[in-house]
């Protein structure tokens, strides 16, 4: 099996104003897939549809090869989840919630669970209602990891956490992925964190997919180009797509382009134009420019 999550032609009308429309996602097995999008674009709704928590109007979803919702129990037994809001019982202690959780997962790694409790400085007798936001996040990651899943579906697992907790939580995740080779599907606004470890990127906006591609292609194809003396240059017949064009100071302009290849520098070799710099767009800038272009095309 080479696809961990397969979504085809997914439709779901959440309200008269908002719908997921014709969403197709392919998450290869073993990928660390970053799922990006502005607030309210449908990321959490999509995740709920993936996990069978919402009933779709049309389309098809498979998790680890299992049809959702028909074979949901088999899929969920092998999937670790961190939902957008903690789903644990507030009156249980940490020890009790571990005991509750592990009962559902035969592969539960008790040794690592107690190790992680120590690393995360979580006290077994503490009640969940008394946990800080950071402690809750650490407990959620611990529960998701110690069931030893093949797939992790994480809805903003580190957003709103301080940098120390964020590091702890991410380190545990990447430690697990190193030893187990699991697939990770993670949504987040912390674009610079995703940029460190994701090898696939999917971007959503207004209920639809904007783009889905390997991180390497994203980096090599999206560039920021600085040009001098290019004011009269018309990009109409350019071999790349111009996403944005901005006057800097004086005669210097910055272009943001998509579909760039190194040999395209030749296109700029004309009178008076000097190509000053071609730099990779980082994920955050690329994300912003892609959304801007997507919205311009839509309206």
């Amino acid at each position, binding site marked *: 099996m080479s696809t961990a999550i397969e979504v085809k032609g997914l439709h779901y009308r959440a309200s008269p104003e908002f719908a997921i429309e014709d969403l197709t996602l392919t998450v290869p097995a073993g990928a660390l897939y970053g799922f990006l999008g502005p607030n309210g674009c449908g990321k959490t709704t999509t995740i709920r549809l993936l996990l069978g928590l919402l009933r779709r109007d049309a389309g098809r979803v498979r998790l680890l090869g299992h049809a959702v919702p028909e074979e949901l129990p088999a899929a969920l037994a092998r999937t670790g989840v961190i939902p957008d809001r903690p789903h644990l019982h507030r009156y249980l202690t940490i020890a009790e919630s571990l005991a509750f959780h592990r009962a559902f997962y035969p592969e539960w790694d008790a040794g690592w669970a107690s190790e992680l409790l120590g690393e995360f400085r979580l006290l077994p007798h503490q009640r969940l209602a008394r946990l800080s936001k950071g402690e809750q996040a650490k407990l959620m990651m611990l529960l998701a990891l110690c069931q030893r899943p093949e797939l992790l579906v994480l809805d903003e697992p580190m957003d709103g956490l301080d940098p120390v907790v964020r590091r702890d939580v991410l380190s545990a995740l990447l430690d697990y992925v190193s030893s187990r080779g699991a697939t990770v599907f993670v949504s987040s606004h912390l674009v*610079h964190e995703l940029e460190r470890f994701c090898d696939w990127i999917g971007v959503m906006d207004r209920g639809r997919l904007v783009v889905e591609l390997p991180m390497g292609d994203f980096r090599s194809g999206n560039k920021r180009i600085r040009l001098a003396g290019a004011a009269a240059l018309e990009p109409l017949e350019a071999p790349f797509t111009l996403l944005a064009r901005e006057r800097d100071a004086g005669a210097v302009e910055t272009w943001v382009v998509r579909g760039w290849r190194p040999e395209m520098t030749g296109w700029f070799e004309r009178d008076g134009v000097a190509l000053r710099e071609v730099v990779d767009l980082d*994920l955050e800038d690329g994300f912003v420019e892609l959304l801007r272009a997507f919205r311009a095309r839509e309206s």
Partner: protein
Amino acid sequence: MFGNLDPKSAVPLYEQIAVRLKAAVATGELRAGDSLPSVRQLAGKLRINPATVVQAYRGLEEQGFVELRQGAGTFVRSVGSETRSRERVAQARRLARQMLADAARFGLSRQELREAIRHELDGGGA
């Protein structure tokens, strides 16, 4: 050793890791027989993709800087003084390339850059 990795840089992360390790070997900070962190440790610590660490280590192995011993880990190989000095030259060239790229960005000519370097090498001053 791995501080200030820059995921936004045009230099891929695996290469940034490899460059740092080679520099450590070239300067003697890492010696023959020293073990490198495991893939799992380093990926967790740096919060990067394990495949990135594997790629860095594999490149270093191909270039003869480390050896992967099955089940034991990754170890620094004994590296001749020739390789060490070659690596120092490579480091210097990387710095120079970076400087050239920055100069191009500011629209400086090579002649201006050359004069500035000579000036600094001669002790700087106004």
